[in-house]
Every structure is written in C-alpha cells, then in structure tokens.
C-alpha cells in the first residue's frame, strides 16, 4: 500500500494543534495554546485564539511536512465533542484545506482519537479504556463495531471538577496539576462524598463538598482527599468493567491521565488482578493533533471520508455514535 500522509487538526478546547503523520512517523507537529489570564476556559475566547492562530499554524505544519516530502492524502479534523465555537473554527480551516488541496476531508471523534493514539503509542489492541479529561470521563471498551461505554460521568468531567475546585481555592487554570502537587504534603483525609451509581459516577457534589471543606481543613488535606475519593471512583468502575468482560489490559488516556497518583492507583488495581496498565507519555495524553491525524489515517485506510455538506460540527458527538470499521 502507498504510504499516505494525513494532516490532523485538533482544537476542541484549549490546545490548538496540527500534525502530519504516516503509519510510522510523526512528520510535523505545531501547537498553540489558549491559557486564560484568570478564570476558566471561555469558549468564545478560545475560539478567537484559535481563529487568530490557525493560519500561521497551518502554514508552519505544511512547511515542516513539505521539508519531509509529505504529500498529503487527506485532512482530518476534530468534529466533536467540544466547544461549539472552537469546533467551527477548526472545521472551517479543514474544509478550506480539503477544497484547495483537493484531498478528502475526514471528521474524527475526539474521544476515539484519544483511544486510537493511545493504542498506537502503547502497542495494545483490545483494552478497557479509562478516558479522563476536562470535559469527558468514561470507561469504554470495543465490542462488535463500536467503542461501548460502560460507565461515564453523570455531570462534569473529572478534569473540570479539579479545575473548578482549583479556581475556588485560588489556583490559576488549570488547577489539576496544582491539586496534585499540594496533595503530596497532606497530613490527613477529610471525608468527601463517594458517588458511584451502577457503573456511572458523578463529580459535581464532590466538588462542592471539597470547596466547603476548605473552611475547616488545609488546602493540602482537601486536595489529597479530593484526589483519593474521585480517583477511587474511577478505578472502581474500571475494575468492574475488567471483571465483567474478562479483559486483561487497561489503557489510560486523556489529560488527567498525566496525574501520577491516578496512574499509581490504576497500576495497583491491575497488578492485584493480574492485568496490565498501559499509559502513553504525557504529550499524547492531552489534546494533540497527532491523535486526530492518526485516527484520520485509520479512517482513510478504511474508506471513511466526509463530504463537505455533511461536515457540520458535532459538539455532543458521542464515541458510541461512531461505527468503528477500522478495528
């Protein structure tokens, strides 16, 4: 088969990123991050950032790819889920490239891109996946043509929960890494609500309770207690999924996957039941253009492309909406 190069554009939230890859190499990768001065991510501000940066970004990534001799076969973009204004910005760029270069357009589900790039980097084929990021928290596994969702958050993503709490405590965005740092110096555990309903979990009540706990406990102790409670919920559901479908591999993906304590807890759970934990390096955990390009390549090889007229963005695009024909 001819070696094909795919350009992928990611920009569902804070990280605008474009990459060109083929089956074996990352040929080019360029990023531009929107970081709010204060408060959290504002969808419109993020979209304005993306709109002002994307021209330069695409020029740079094409120049880098050109030096490598990459002749593009398709352009893939993150079609959703994500912030509507951000999605529309990158979709516009992707359509323009598809038309001007006369190459197919591919609409990639952002959640599935996290999974596929994790599988590529870690070389694992059929894991139970814990996908944890700002907006999303899900336990998934592939069966019969789809990534099925075993359990998911009933309200906000774990990353959003950590950031909301962090903002209240006065940390700059993103709060998650700061929470992780402070937790290391905790002296005791403060009881917080542990909410698992069936296979689903919920973080908004926990976030409120953690904010309240700052009134009577140290920041360090509350950060520690928040992590221990929330991560135990995620690991419990992951373990139940493993037990139910009798798989032996776990893949951790998404920005919160960079948290060392979460990784450690998952690792212990896996060890105790004879399973293996796979986690890509941090740059492939968080949002990145490589994951969109890689998934775009898999889809292209299976003949899945997207006519421009059907390329509207899908802010609520669920991973179990996607027919996974390439696995």
């Amino acid at each position: 088969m001819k070696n094909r190069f795919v350009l992928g554009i990611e920009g569902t939230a804070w990280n605008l990123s474009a990459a060109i890859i083929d089956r074996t190499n990352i040929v080019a990768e360029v990023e531009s991050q929107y970081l709010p001065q204060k408060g959290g991510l504002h969808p419109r501000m993020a979209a304005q950032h993306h709109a002002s940066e994307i021209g330069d970004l695409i020029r740079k990534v094409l120049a880098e790819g050109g030096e490598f001799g990459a002749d593009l076969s398709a352009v893939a973009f993150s079609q959703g889920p994500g912030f509507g204004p951000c999605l529309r910005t990158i979709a516009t760029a992707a359509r323009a490239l598809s038309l001007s270069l006369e190459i197919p357009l591919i609409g990639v589900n952002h959640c599935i891109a996290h999974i596929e790039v994790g599988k590529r980097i870690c070389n694992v084929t059929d894991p139970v996946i814990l996908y944890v990021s700002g907006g999303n928290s899900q336990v998934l596994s592939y069966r019969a043509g789809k990534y099925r969702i075993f359990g998911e958050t009933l309200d906000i993503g774990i990353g959003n929960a950590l950031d909301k709490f962090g903002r209240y405590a006065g940390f700059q965005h993103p709060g998650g890494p700061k929470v992780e740092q402070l937790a290391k110096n905790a002296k005791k555990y403060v009881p917080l609500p542990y909410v698992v309903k069936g296979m689903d979990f919920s973080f908004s009540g926990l976030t409120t309770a953690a904010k309240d706990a700052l009134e009577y406990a140290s920041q360090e102790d509350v950060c520690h207690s928040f992590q221990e409670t929330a991560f135990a919920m995620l690991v419990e559901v992951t373990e139940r999924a493993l037990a139910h479908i009798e798989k032996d591999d776990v893949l951790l993906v998404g920005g919160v996957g960079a948290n060392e304590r979460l990784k450690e807890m998952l690792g212990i759970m896996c060890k105790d039941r004879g399973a293996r934990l796979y986690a890509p390096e941090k740059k492939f955990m968080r949002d990145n253009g490589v994951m969109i390009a890689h998934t775009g390549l898999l889809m292209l090889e299976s003949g899945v492309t997207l006519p421009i007229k059907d390329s509207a963005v899908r802010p609520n695009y669920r991973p179990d909406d996607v027919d996974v024909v390439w696995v």
Partner: protein
Amino acid sequence: MNLKTSGAEAIVRSCDGHILKQRIPKRYRIKEVDEQIRRDRTKSEAKMISEARRSGIPTPVIYDVTDYDIRMEYLEGAQLKHVLDVDLCKRIGELVGRLHTSGIVHGDLTTSNMILSQGKIYLIDFGLAYFDRNTEARGVDVHVLFQTFESTHEEHDALINAFIEGYEKTFDGAKEIVQRVKAIESRGRYRTERL
C-alpha cells in the same frame, strides 16, 4: 466453605447452610476511603434487604452484620434468568411494583438477582439499592431490567408486556414510570446498546 461468586467488590461463600457475603479491601485506595466504602455499602445493603422484607418483598433473612460482612439465609432455587417465562415475568412486575410502592429502588434489577425458591420469587443483592420516590430513579430501575430481558431472553416484547401488567397491578404510579422508561430509552446515552 464453598466459593459461590467473586465479583470486583465482594466474595460470596456458602458456609454452614448460610451465605456469607464479604466486601474485600482494595489496596489501590487509601485505608480511610476503603473502609468507609465497604462499611457504608455493607450497612446499606443489610438495611435495604430488611426494609424490603418489611414491605412484603421476599428477601433472604439476615442473621448477622459486621463491618464488612453479611451472613444471610441460603436460598435453594434457581436464578430467574434460567427459568424465566411470561407468567413469572408478570410476578416480577408485581414484585417490583411493591418494591417501588415502598419507596425502594433496587439499583441493579437483573434476572440474575432474582431467585425462585419454593414457589416464591426472592430479590437479592441490594448493594446498590436506595430510597427514592422519583420517577427518574424508578424508570431507570425498570429500564435496566428491560435491558436484561432484551439481551438475555427471547420474546422480550411478551416478557415486557407481562411485566407491565403485573407492575400496574401493585403500583399506582406505574403508568407514569412506563412512560418514563420509553423516554429513557430514546435518550442519547441509552440509544446504543451498553455492555
């Protein structure tokens, strides 16, 4: 002792003609969280089993509850999933109707968690049960059961209709719940089959 099942959360053994359900510690979580979860769930399960029994729902008799263990009656019989038919489904409907009338939501209604013993249908495994009189909670309870009909039994339409007939007989609010089940099924999160 004879190991019956070993799930992710608890091990269940038969022992001297009793059932011993033990919630086992998990090393991945700190002791404070681990003990709190195991203690809360054990206490809650024992309480909900007794509450259901008090409302006329056949459940195993509880002999003893310690921090993490429940010792209860061993029921000789078959799981409903192995013997299910339309007539039994109607009786399941009556049973769940009584359960919901009493304000209890089971949280994990499957035909594996029902045992036909000496002609009576017993409900077991109340680890995820709680008190809730809201339409949504009851609707999800029934929806989960319908999913097990669909995934593990043939002729599920007849089974569902028989269930509804029994459910409406013992529970005044049944019609509203059945409506809600349809709404739940049409929602995005349940639109595709879950494992």
